[in-house]
């Protein structure tokens, strides 16, 4: 079944990542050429400040990746910078100096930063943490570190810092080339990274973290790894900075530097890599020049520009400039890469011997309010089960309890023999649950292809430097993509899709997870008649051809009648009826419930 291609000649698709790599290399070479020549064209003072600015630009880049791309507002990257700087100064001051010592100090600084990053990540990125709390932890980090430095007395130099320690007193040009090479290398890698598959995952986390969990993406783990990696880079930059300037002071680890980084990134253009790098260099160099003549007015201008940008131009100055330039030159923005679609052989869902879904005694309460009680039922292979009932019956709560192990207050949910326990949503996906939300909560700035790929996180390898040219999808997902015209719009951003197409994409993403059990919450809401029929056809074929188990919450009872093999009626948090479509539809009990009877309904035989 595999090997069936649909769009764009294979060769062209495979060539795309190569072209991307070449483009980045070309820019890197150009920058390197500039780097080599620059020291001979500029005066000593400028070169001196530029070297510092280059190291700081590398640090700002890490802030952009964390904040601009992943949405983690961090005040704490300065702490990692400080760790690297102090590693350099402490080792050179107290222990020794030489090539071996230098390597040792660099590695020590990087490892220490990574350890701190791991701690901070564990503290800040636990499942269910609010973004505000993460920012608080990153705020506390540089403050704590600064105080630790103060407390270090003569060892760390306390508030005056350390200076005059042995270091490499190379020519300015040499330092310039080292700093520049470091920055160019980090920038090129960063650009490749943010445009790769993994880079798209970061953007997805920024836009809708919860949805990522339901796509099986381990968000906490990714954020922690990212923090560790960015800490390492920050420490390397700090090491270089300290080695060059020959001075370290607590300000390098502090809260104020941390906020300055955010200002540089915001002004340069968050989420663009190049913007923050250029912005940092420009602002830092200008600051150095003006710090003699009008220090306060300059800071005032920066502060005002910062506030204006945040309020009015959240994208930053450089992207606005870029847009204006593009309009002037009448050039269209670079097209997003379009992968080739390919069918993947679908494996039969789960272990043949086990029952797909067993729900025993599930209940959910909020304080004294009982929302679900005594929920017991099973779903077999190839069953299409509809959950119906008036508002407030607990249907959506039940779906939540099936897709998120931590949601229920009691009871057991067992999938193919494995107990869901208290596993978070991304683990439930691994066990075979695929949940589609009522509102098509997808990622506005990602393309159709990028969204579909996100769903493949658990099943395929995600590249760190390129967009994998082939996108494998199971047949059901592929069919939706074909039939709804999404196959021709793979490079279109989601926000330009119609409501019906968004719903179709959402469903395709859920099916791309290759779930064994599909949970749908009001899949027909807001759809036209044709779209309704199409979804009905897709769900029916999922159940008949692929033998999946489908559970859907619906209000459109005609739809329910047409496609379900079984219906469960819920009322006031309990199951009141579980039977075939005919049994339920003709039941007097159900009519009573829907007519608004107020008596708590007792379970009745059909």
């Amino acid at each position, binding site marked *: 079944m595999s090997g069936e291609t649909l769009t764009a000649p294979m060769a062209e698709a495979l060539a795309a990542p190569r072209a991307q790599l070449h483009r980045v290399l070309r820019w890197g070479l150009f920058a390197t050429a500039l780097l080599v020549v620059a020291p001979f064209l500029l005066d000593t003072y400028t070169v001196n400040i530029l070297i510092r600015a280059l190291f700081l630009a590398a640090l700002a880049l890490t802030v952009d990746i964390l904040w601009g791309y992943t949405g983690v507002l961090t005040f704490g990257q300065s702490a990692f910078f400080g760790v690297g700087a102090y590693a350099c100064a402490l080792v050179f001051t107290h222990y020794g100096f030489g090539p071996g010592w230098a390597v040792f100090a660099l590695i020590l600084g990087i490892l220490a930063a990574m350890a701190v990053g791991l701690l901070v990540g564990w503290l800040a990125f636990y499942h269910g943490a609010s973004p505000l709390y993460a920012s608080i932890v990153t705020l506390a980090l540089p403050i704590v570190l600064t105080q630790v430095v103060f407390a270090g007395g003569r060892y760390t130099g306390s508030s005056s810092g350390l200076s005059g320690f042995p270091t490499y007193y190379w020519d300015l040009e040499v330092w310039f080339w080292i700093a520049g090479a470091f920055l160019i290398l980090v920038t090129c890698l960063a650009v490749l990274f943010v445009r790769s598959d993994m880079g798209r995952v970061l953007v997805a986390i920024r836009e809708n973290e919860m949805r990522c969990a339901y796509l099986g993406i381990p968000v906490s783990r990714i954020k922690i790894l990212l923090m560790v990696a960015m800490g390492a880079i920050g420490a390397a930059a700090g090491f270089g900075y300290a080695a060059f300037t020959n001075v370290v002071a607590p300000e390098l680890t502090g809260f104020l530097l941390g906020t300055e980084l955010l200002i540089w990134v915001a002004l340069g253009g968050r989420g663009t890599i190049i913007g923050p790098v250029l912005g940092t260099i420009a602002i830092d160099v200008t600051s150095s020049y003006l710090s003699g003549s009008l220090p306060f007015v300059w800071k005032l201008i920066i502060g005002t520009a910062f506030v204006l940008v945040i309020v009015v131009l959240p994208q930053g100055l450089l992207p606005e400039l870029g847009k204006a330039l593009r309009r002037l030159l009448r050039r269209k923005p670079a097209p997003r890469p379009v992968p080739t679609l390919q069918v993947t052989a679908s494996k039969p869902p789960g272990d043949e011997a086990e029952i797909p879904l067993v729900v025993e005694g599930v209940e959910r309460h909020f304080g004294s309010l009982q929302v679900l009680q005594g929920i017991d039922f099973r779903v077999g292979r190839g069953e299409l089960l509809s959950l119906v009932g008036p508002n407030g019956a607990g249907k959506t709560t039940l779906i939540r309890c099936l897709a998120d192990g931590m949601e229920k207050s009691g009871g057991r949910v067992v999938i193919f023999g494995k107990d869901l326990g208290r596993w978070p949503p991304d683990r439930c996906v691994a066990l075979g649950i695929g949940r589609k939300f009522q509102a098509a909560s997808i990622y506005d700035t990602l393309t159709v292809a990028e969204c579909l790929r996100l769903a493949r996180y658990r099943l395929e390898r995600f590249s760190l430097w390129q967009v994998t040219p082939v996108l494998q999808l199971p047949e059901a997902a592929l069919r939706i993509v074909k039939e709804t015209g999404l196959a021709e719009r793979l490079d279109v951003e989601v926000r330009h899709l119609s409501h019906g197409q968004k719903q179709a994409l959402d469903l395709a993403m859920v099916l791309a997870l290759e779930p064994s059990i599909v949970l749908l919450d*009001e899949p027909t809401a807001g759809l036209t008649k044709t779209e309704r029929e199409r979804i009905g056809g897709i769900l029916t074929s999922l159940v008949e051809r692929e033998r999946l188990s489908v559970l859907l919450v619906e*209000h459109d009872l005609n739809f329910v009648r047409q496609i379900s093999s079984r219906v469960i009626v819920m009322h006031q948090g309990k199951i009141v009826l579980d039977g075939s479509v005919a049994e339920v539809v003709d039941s007097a009990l159900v*009519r009573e419930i829907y*007519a608004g009877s107020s008596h708590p309904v007792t379970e009745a035989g059909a």
Partner: protein
Amino acid sequence: MSAETVLELAGVSSGYGEATVVRDVSLSVKNGEIVAMLGKNGMGKSTLLKTVMGYLPVQKGAVTVLQNDMTREPPHRIARRGVAYSPQAEAIFHDLTVRENLVLGMPDPHGFDAEFARICGIFPFMKDRLAQRAGTLSGGEQKMLILARALMARPRLILIDEITEGLQPSVIDRLGQALLDERAKNGVSIFLVEQHIQFALRVADRWAVLKLGEIDDAGDCTAPGAAARIANHLAV
């Protein structure tokens, strides 16, 4: 009683984001009239009320309240024109006292004691409950509190979203009677959204059914066979 219109919807479409849930709805409520909008879950009834009250932007058409164009007005301005809104969920402040909830129903709290005495005539149980936290009232008492709050400021128009949900028949009767009495005494107009057919027919003068966001059918509540017609639309 003049025949002026208290609420006029002209070709109103609205929804969430780009989605259109309510399509091209036109209806009017005259002074002193009670109109019931029925329909199954998910058909757009709550969305319609939220649109009238200004919580959702109107994509097409116009909303006129008490002869004034309220299409683009925010909820608090519409409320201050004499419209009382009782939402389906989260309709009271659980952590505030009964008294505080009632006071919030009156932009000008000056006549509180007089109005409260009037309300106690309709819902006698409230007399000694002023200091009780609203969240500790029973389900039925909470709904009565909602209605009491709506009546405190003597509104011109009341919008009610499925107030009978989950209530005992006796309480439903009392609520219905209170609405009828208030209309008889003070000429208030009421636009209510319901799934409970008997309640709607008992209280309202006219009915309409909302299906997939559009008005599917309408009629007089006193006409014979109305119940059967509506039941047909709402059938499982």
